[in-house]
């Protein structure tokens, strides 16, 4: 296991590596939660882009 991998998963990663059905289900749930982060990041990127457009409108 790489150091990067340990950092990203921590204790959960060690538990998931046990490969028991419950551990694997927990890993799937964790990945689904992590995917929800995209919603925040996508909206954040849209907000920043919109802000730039507004500022650009103010400058010109």
């Amino acid at each position: 296991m790489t150091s990067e991998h340990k950092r990203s998963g921590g204790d959960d990663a060690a538990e998931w590596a046990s490969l028991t059905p419950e551990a694997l289900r927990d890993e799937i749930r964790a990945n689904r939660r992590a995917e929800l982060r995209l919603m925040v990041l996508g909206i954040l990127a849209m907000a920043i882009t919109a802000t730039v457009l507004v500022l650009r409108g103010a400058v010109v």
Partner: protein
Amino acid sequence: MPTGDDVLAVVAALCVVAVALGVVPVLTGVYQYLLLPVHSVRNHLRKAQPYLPRVAVLIPAWNEAAVLTSSLTRLMDLEYPPENLRVYVIDDASTDETPAVLAVMTQKWPERIVHLRREQGGQGKAHTLNHGLEQVLADDWCQAVMITDADVIFLPDSLRRMTRHLADPRIGAVTGYIREGTGKPGTVSRFVGFEYVTAQAAARRAQNVLGALACLAGGAQLHARDSLVAVGGRIDTSTLAEDTFTTILTQLNGRRVVFEPYAQVLAEEPDSINALWKQRVRWARGNVRITAHFRDIWFRPSRRHRLGSISFGLIWFSVFLLPVANLAATVGLLGLYAIDSVVALQTFRALWWVSATAYIFVTLTSLLIDSATARRSWWQGLTFPGLGAIVVMIAAWFPGFIEVTVTGWLGLPAIPDDATLWIFALYAWNVLAMGLAWTLKGLERVRGGRWPSRLLLYVVGFGPMLCAITLDAYVKEWRKKAAVWDKTVKSGRVVG
């Protein structure tokens, strides 16, 4: 009888349409990024289940001694039931130390690594893979087949994160997220690293949402056995993009293909412009043939698959026809300039206003969704369209800023409004950048040319260079140049 003014008006309208064509790929790119938040709630993870089938990993190898020890060791260290994993290295008549390396590895893991030697090789990756497929499909041991490359390093959790999707029988194949993983990446490798965020982490998530995937990554494609058998149990040998061919066949057969962003593997990507050019021409020529071969599916919606949807067609052709779109936009702008310079200026600003907005949104999102790559390749991300294109965007967004303000800072005379050369450079930048990209190959080859070629790459941009490579692939296909399988040399610089 139409007057001269009528004819000019029609030509001007056609020029505007040509410029609008240039905007289509930009808008399609933005559309894919807008689908990213949707993927957070609409993905296949909700249907994934713990599933650890017996997997046969196929590794085609020709002179891969430098990388095999590392990649095979990492496969043996996967967090996956060892009794359910066998690795078959198909040695395509290697002439280096590959057989000796494999002798050591098969002795260390006698039940789990198999050395398949072809005495007559050199036919290409697809033929090599077919040799392996014949072996692994000969008995009923394997339930899934993983196709990968000799240099690919699998992270410990990657395989099980792919197999969990095969628990759903509607899924025919799964692909992982290939990240550029060189220990000390150079400029070209860093650009590729950022490109993979856009082309995989972002675009493939969007394609998951649309229900149609353009390509299973060649280095991490997991097939359900029955799905692979249903499409012939063999890899197509007629194109240079066998992974895309299999991806499309699988979906035409009614099985879905999904991208799993949390199954990450590391690969060594080319760090020279010439090696990258060779690799990407091969890919692009493959795509030309695939576009023609599957000509009946584009923009023809079907109940069996989503490849014929309008959205997917736009995504496919926005990449495939990008050089044409750039050329059309340039011809349109220059044509308008010849007819009416005021309309040309307004159209130019509109075109680059859209491009600048897309650049900010896409770059920002890409850097946010993969922080590890962002740390490695943030500068290559910012300069992906090229410093030249950024200058054009500034000129379009802030009229007079460069022409008056910047030249003033530099103590130079202001650029007049009717400076033909400046206007030509702005309006034709997309095509000029592709032209300059062609010189990069030659410049890199000359003695002492490596450093200047990297500097010019930042000016031209990685995106326009890829566009020039696609154009080169068109030309080679049109001239029916021999389609040769040119192996990308790997040196074992991946660390993970």
